[in-house]
């Protein structure tokens, strides 16, 4: 699948994006038979550029996909991961669906709210944390489950959750990795992970290489 060639208008729409994001845009548009399909990955790229989904970002995505701004907005507002407000450096998501609930997820959420001083659904004043409860994360065998910038930790207790928050606040790691967090703060796992995971997230955007936010962790 060859990267797409961008028209002048399309290049104009993302002229202030980084070169690596511009290259991602070409590659993403080349992956689909219809460029409209790239709207979701492109929204992630716009979040990498702007920190969250901004009006400007949606306009750029509209130009790239041949949609109207209203159409892009209607897509963005449908999904929970396209955040419409500035986020903290760490997006801490606590699963409170049934299996995690049965094993104490509400206590984990309460501990995280208390330790960060940030209530569920909000971002702290200093911009370090956004805290949210989320629905099932597909790790119910390792309940309760917490994600930091979508990197997963399984088998978290309320105490370990507090330690995780302190570690993030005091250490301020630029890259958070699922492997490191699991070793430090995790417990039971849904299944044997078996392999060291070398990659982690640098932003509250899923760290998936085609969107450019994955980085190596030490």
């Amino acid at each position: 699948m060859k990267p797409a060639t961008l028209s002048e208008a399309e290049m104009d729409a993302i002229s202030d994006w980084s070169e690596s994001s511009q290259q991602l845009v070409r590659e993403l548009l080349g992956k689909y038979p219809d460029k409209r399909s790239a709207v979701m990955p492109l929204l992630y790229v716009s979040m990498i550029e702007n920190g969250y989904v901004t009006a400007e970002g949606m306009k750029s995505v509209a130009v790239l996909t041949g949609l109207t701004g209203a159409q892009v907005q209607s897509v963005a507002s449908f999904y929970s991961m396209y955040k419409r407000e500035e986020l903290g450096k760490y997006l801490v998501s606590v699963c409170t669906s049934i299996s995690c609930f049965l094993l104490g997820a509400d206590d984990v959420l309460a501990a995280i709210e208390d330790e960060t001083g940030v209530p569920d659904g909000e971002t702290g004043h200093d911009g370090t944390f956004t805290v949210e409860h989320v629905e099932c994360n597909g790790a119910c065998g390792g309940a309760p489950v917490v994600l930091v910038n979508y990197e997963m930790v399984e088998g978290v207790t309320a105490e370990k959750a507090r330690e995780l928050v302190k570690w993030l606040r005091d250490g301020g790691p630029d890259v958070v990795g699922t492997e490191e967090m699991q070793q430090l703060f995790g417990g039971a796992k849904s299944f044997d992970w078996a392999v060291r995971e070398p990659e982690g997230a640098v932003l509250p955007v899923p760290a998936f290489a085609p969107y450019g936010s994955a980085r190596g962790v030490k």
Partner: protein
Amino acid sequence: MKILTERMEAHRTDSHTIERYEATGGYSALRKGFEIGPEAVTAEVKASNIRGRGGANFPAGVKWGFLAPARPAYLVINADESEPGTFKDRQLLERDPHQLVEGVVLSSYALGVNHAFIYIRGEYPKPARRVQHAVDEAYAKGYLGKDILGSGFDLDVTVHLGGGAYICGEESALLNSLEGRRGEPRIKPPFPAVEGLYSKPTIVNNVETISNVPWIVSNGGIAYASIGPDTSAGTRLISLSGHINKPGNYEIVMGMTWRDLIYDIGGGIPGGRELKAWIPGGSSAPWFVPAEHLDTPATIDDVNDLGSMMGSGAVIVMDETTDVVAAAHRIVRFYSHESCGQCTPCREGTTWLERIFNRLLNGQGRMADIDLLIDVSDGISPGLTWPPAMTTICPLGPSATAPVVSIMKYFRDEVEARVVSGIPVALEAADG
């Protein structure tokens, strides 16, 4: 008998690499497929009797048979895995991604598809990284791309990440999402096999379903069909979670009893506590209770006959300490949050149910709320049968009624006690 997890168990640390995959027979099914031809591959899948592992348990070979002749056609792998209790696809994606990729190539070849998509839920970056890496390796080795292994067959695979929405697991919502739209289910017919992605014929299959295809082609559909009971052929991955000593994914041959599954495989209930109830097939399924169901067999049809479903293979176990009102609320809240809002009974009904539960949990419940829970549920799913009568575009709305009906059927006294005292029965018992 292990099919899906054999490699990852035998080769713990490198089952996800192409080197290990090739060294353990990987991509030899593909060579065989190219030798026997697309019709023969389809025939093997039909003969296997494998039923889809995404939730609806529909026979894969039959679905493939519905694919309309127009081209291009597409294959879309459903890796949206979001049904509470379910975490099996994540293991397959992370630990044996090439098994899926080989299944995708074989299935695409059989179906006459030249572009396949793997739609992975947005909260799964690690599985997505592993799958993308496997896809890149497969391109580099000539298992994807142009003229695969000199067969003349071309296939591109796009790995797509979702944006966080349970409803995108429903296949027509998934296709809308993949087209860059809101993930709202489509009115059927037309079914995706006739008008799917970009209005072209499309097959949507679950990760686990397609991960079985290499084994089926290598060993023959008849060999697969001979594993387990006739109408629940093959092995399947069961995700065990909740109050259970050994949570995890277990590849089992269907047909064992729930007692075997919960007590032998799952190691029983922590602290030797009593089993109170379990959900046999993901949070959408009506609950089972020990007095009635513990010695019944865990097969697709037995569970259907008893008014529930094996769904996505997720078993959620609740012990005697469980506050069933709070548990049912938690499941109802999920559906209320995830309703896409297109159908009034689902949008309004799930919100209403959630509100009534909130009252009950806050100690502000009224006796009339108990009938109201039933009335509202009946408004979403008239008759409250299972499988549900459908007044909505998709089964999400009716799914929200399963926990309500279940607690009314088996634990009505606890719900009533909740209204009277405002205190969960499980807590009262603990306080003596």
